[in-house]
């Protein structure tokens, strides 16, 4: 074990952590909106909309994230027409491709988490709202959504950690996140053990922080 190498690579890996955090937060924010939208579509009575939302979550949960990134980054650029549209400005950047792939992936899992949360809301809460004469729209936005979010916190916490681990795949489309930088340092120093263990330590620390943050939020917003 070359401890001095571990220490000297730490600043480089930590500055790469900024990209990991950026990728994670951007995809989580977009993914939350996608997830909420598709969870609502899943609850729709219209069977076409319902099936469409189910197909979305099934496909994104049933295929590896790596395939999804590769389709978006390598695949879409192949379509001639697509390259002439304004969207190409976004899709030619590996950074945005990674965020889009991550967001679509976490959106699929989030939609499942939120859907089951919506379905397990006690009907009494909604009935109470109705008996107070609150309109359906306000019941949905002010009662159902907050309760569903609270109920899905533990599962969503797991999803955040899974997504954080997923961001390491950004290194496969040339991005220099923690894993990307670690691999680059290994290719120049030939010390895989030291570098990957240091990188793993940073990820573990991030997992620890997210885990405790979610626990804190669970306690703060508990019903008791």
């Amino acid at each position: 074990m070359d401890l001095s190498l571990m220490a000297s690579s730490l600043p480089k890996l930590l500055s790469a952590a900024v990209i990991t955090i950026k990728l994670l937060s951007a995809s989580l924010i977009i993914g939350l909106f996608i997830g909420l939208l598709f969870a609502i579509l899943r609850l729709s009575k219209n069977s076409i909309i319902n099936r469409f939302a189910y197909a979305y979550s099934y496909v994104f949960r049933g295929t590896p994230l790596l395939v999804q990134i590769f389709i978006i980054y390598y695949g879409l650029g192949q379509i001639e027409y697509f390259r002439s549209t304004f969207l190409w400005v976004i899709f030619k950047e590996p950074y945005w491709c990674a965020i889009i792939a991550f967001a679509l992936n976490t959106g699929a899992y989030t939609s499942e988490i939120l859907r089951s949360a919506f379905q397990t809301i006690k009907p009494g809460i909604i009935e109470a709202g109705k008996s107070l004469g609150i309109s359906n729209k306000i019941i949905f936005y002010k009662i159902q959504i907050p309760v569903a979010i609270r109920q899905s916190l533990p599962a969503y916490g797991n999803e955040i950690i899974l997504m954080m681990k997923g961001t390491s795949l950004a290194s496969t489309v040339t991005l220099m996140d923690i894993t990307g930088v670690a691999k680059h340092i290994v290719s120049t120093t030939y010390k895989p053990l030291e570098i990957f263990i240091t990188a793993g330590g940073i990820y573990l620390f991030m997992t620890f922080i997210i885990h405790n943050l979610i626990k804190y939020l669970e306690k703060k917003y508990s019903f008791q």
Partner: protein
Amino acid sequence: MDFLTFGKTGWGDELFYATLMTIAVSITAMLIGFLFSAIFTPLKLSSNKFLNLIANSYTTVIRGVPELLVIYLFFFGGSGAIMYVASIFGYNDYIEINAFITGSVAIGIISGAYSTEVFRGAIQSIDKGQFEACKVLGLKRYIYFLKVIMPQMLRLAIPNLSNVWQITLKDTSLISVTGLVEIMRQSYIAAGSTRDPLFFYSFAAVLYLMLTFLSMKLINKLEIKYSRGF
């Protein structure tokens, strides 16, 4: 669809063998995972604090670190570590480990961390009376485990193990970085030589979907079998 013909010009047979490779790696990794959980689940449930600590650090570290990093560590660090051990015993030649073995072990260790949690949860939710009854009846330890605890544990564990299986199956796509020719690697090669990444990666996605779909059907049958009588 010309791309998918079998024979020299198409990629059909290559992709077929690649799919078999994905299945082989997934099953091997899952079995290695069971081996790890057979070691770590008892440690987790033990009353010894030190053994608990070992098992908890295994599951926490593995589940808190990206799969890709674990695979890189094994692939780039694995042969170095083995050569170091071999050099202690006086063997100094270069040792290269097979990509299939490295990949299966790396994914297996990850899969094992998840299965350990599943088995621990399943054993803990078995009624305490069952354990006490076995003791009262004076059953031998292995009979009591095989005939009483195991069937009840499996019933509780199978739904969650099916999640672990899905995670393991999807994780095998990451082994493509080590050069093992499974679905992802084969698609990468085909996409490179035909310049049609969209088709081949989409087809890879379809293959993975098929595998997850079919394995879910199989697991559902198992689930029905093991939940008989409840």
